[in-house]
């Protein structure tokens, strides 16, 4: 099965549902090492995204991703708005006008998303941010795509790697974002952004 506009919309609806489901957990994680609004901010953004999906829908996966990007940027605020927004925007740009995406195209979109987040947030792997989850996801996605994986399989591999990478942020000391103010006290908590990234990828994988 390939990935077209309709299946992209379904995947985004699933991501929005996951954000709603994990809203309190993400906010609680953020309260430990940030300011306690990560789940609320993402939920506000994705509920606005759901509203947009009730209107006239774009005819390509790239068009859907771009709609998600601009909605997140204009509703989420905080650091998550520009970062997740940039991720979806770069993914949209990477897939262009294609009507359907295959496995390699999905992996390419994920890599573009990661590069965008790195450029915007200036974080590197090991800083205890969503870049840790995205970076691992991209590597796994590229391997799965190279092995002939279909879009859902590529995303599932990405989600598995992101979940593992999110857990691996627990012993790290934060060097970017608000958690960095905690210094050593940020050790022992998972990064909320890496965690939400894993949840969203899991939902997108279906």
């Amino acid at each position, binding site marked *: 099965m390939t990935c077209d506009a309709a299946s992209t919309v379904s995947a985004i609806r699933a991501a929005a549902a996951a954000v709603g489901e994990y809203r309190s957990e993400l906010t609680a994680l953020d309260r430990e090492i940030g300011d306690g*609004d990560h789940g609320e*901010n993402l939920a506000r953004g994705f509920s606005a995204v759901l509203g947009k999906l009730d209107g006239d829908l774009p005819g390509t996966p790239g068009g859907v991703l771009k709609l998600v990007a601009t909605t997140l940027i204009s509703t989420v605020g905080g650091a998550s708005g520009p970062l997740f927004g940039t991720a979806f925007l770069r993914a949209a740009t990477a897939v262009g006008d294609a009507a359907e995406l295959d496995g390699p195209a999905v992996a390419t979109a994920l890599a573009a998303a990661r590069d965008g987040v790195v450029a915007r947030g200036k974080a590197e792997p090991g800083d205890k941010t969503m870049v840790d989850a995205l970076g691992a996801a991209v590597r796994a996605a590229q391997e799965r795509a190279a092995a002939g994986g279909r879009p859902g399989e590529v995303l599932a591999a990405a989600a598995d790697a992101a979940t593992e990478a999110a857990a691996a942020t627990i012993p790290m000391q934060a060097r970017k974002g608000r958690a960095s103010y905690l210094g050593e006290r940020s050790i022992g908590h998972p990064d909320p952004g890496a965690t939400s990234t894993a949840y969203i990828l899991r939902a997108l994988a279906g």
Partner: protein
Amino acid sequence: MKKIINDPADVVRESLQGFALAHPDLVTLSLDPLFVARATPTVRGTVAVVSGGGSGHEPLHAGFVGDGMLDAAVPGTVFSSPTPDQVVAAAHAVHAGAGILLVVKNYTGDVLNFETAAELLQADGIEVRTVIVDDDVAVRDSTFTAGRRGVGGTVLLEKIVGAAVARGDDLDTVHALAERVVGVVRSMGVALRPSTVPHSGEPSFTLGEDEMEFGVGIHGEPGRERRAMLPADGIVALLLEAVVTDLPFAAGDRVIVLLNGLGGTPLMELYLAYGSVRGQLESRGITVARSLVGNYVTALEMQGMSITMLQLDDEMMSLWDAPVHTAALRWGV
């Protein structure tokens, strides 16, 4: 959680609606997107100063919109930055042909959203300069953190820059002045009790009766360390030591002191602490030329205070003394 609110989701909008109703001579409110602008248009051909950031820090920023200070303030949700389209709309509303200065506190979210807004405004043909305020000495400024936070120094900067704009300085001159202020202003805060964000309903951290969070941030971010509670003179000594040695401030300096309440501390205690600050600075040979005591950059109902010091030169002093008429600061008019 006990708060005077309706639906937690409506707190910021409803608060600003009340603010606008209370100060119709000073501000107008845009609801979609949300921002506060001066009631009287920015003088044609002068720079417009736009600031903003998370809500919950009142009177920052909307309380400083008016003559001699900000042209517009852009509020985010509680403790979260506004979005780029809010900033862009506010900047368009107050642009008077001579460019926009964006005053941004150094938090990842604020920097990212204002950066995006600046790009969009430049694409619209509007000249933009950005100053990042990072006065909080509690945070180690290194490649291992997001850099120092912007706290109380923001108020002093906005007042001084607003006066420069009122006398007709151009965008580059105003921007250079803003950078100069950032270079000579330092702050540090302490919390005795946390705040509770309306949408979460949970305190941002917990402190024992005999503990204080030293070097706390204005969102309840933990600070440098948790220490045993001390009498006022001891707390002031610790805060001053951190602030004074950082710049460093030296004997012979003239300074503005902002003794700032974080929202939950009675003025009685703030004035008591201010007396202690004056005595301790005097014994260091530092002259307090101007001062401000009260709640200016708050963290909801957090109990605690911060001390901000700005090393004055003659120009900054005269700009500080220039008339200002806003909801939260007013003199000379």
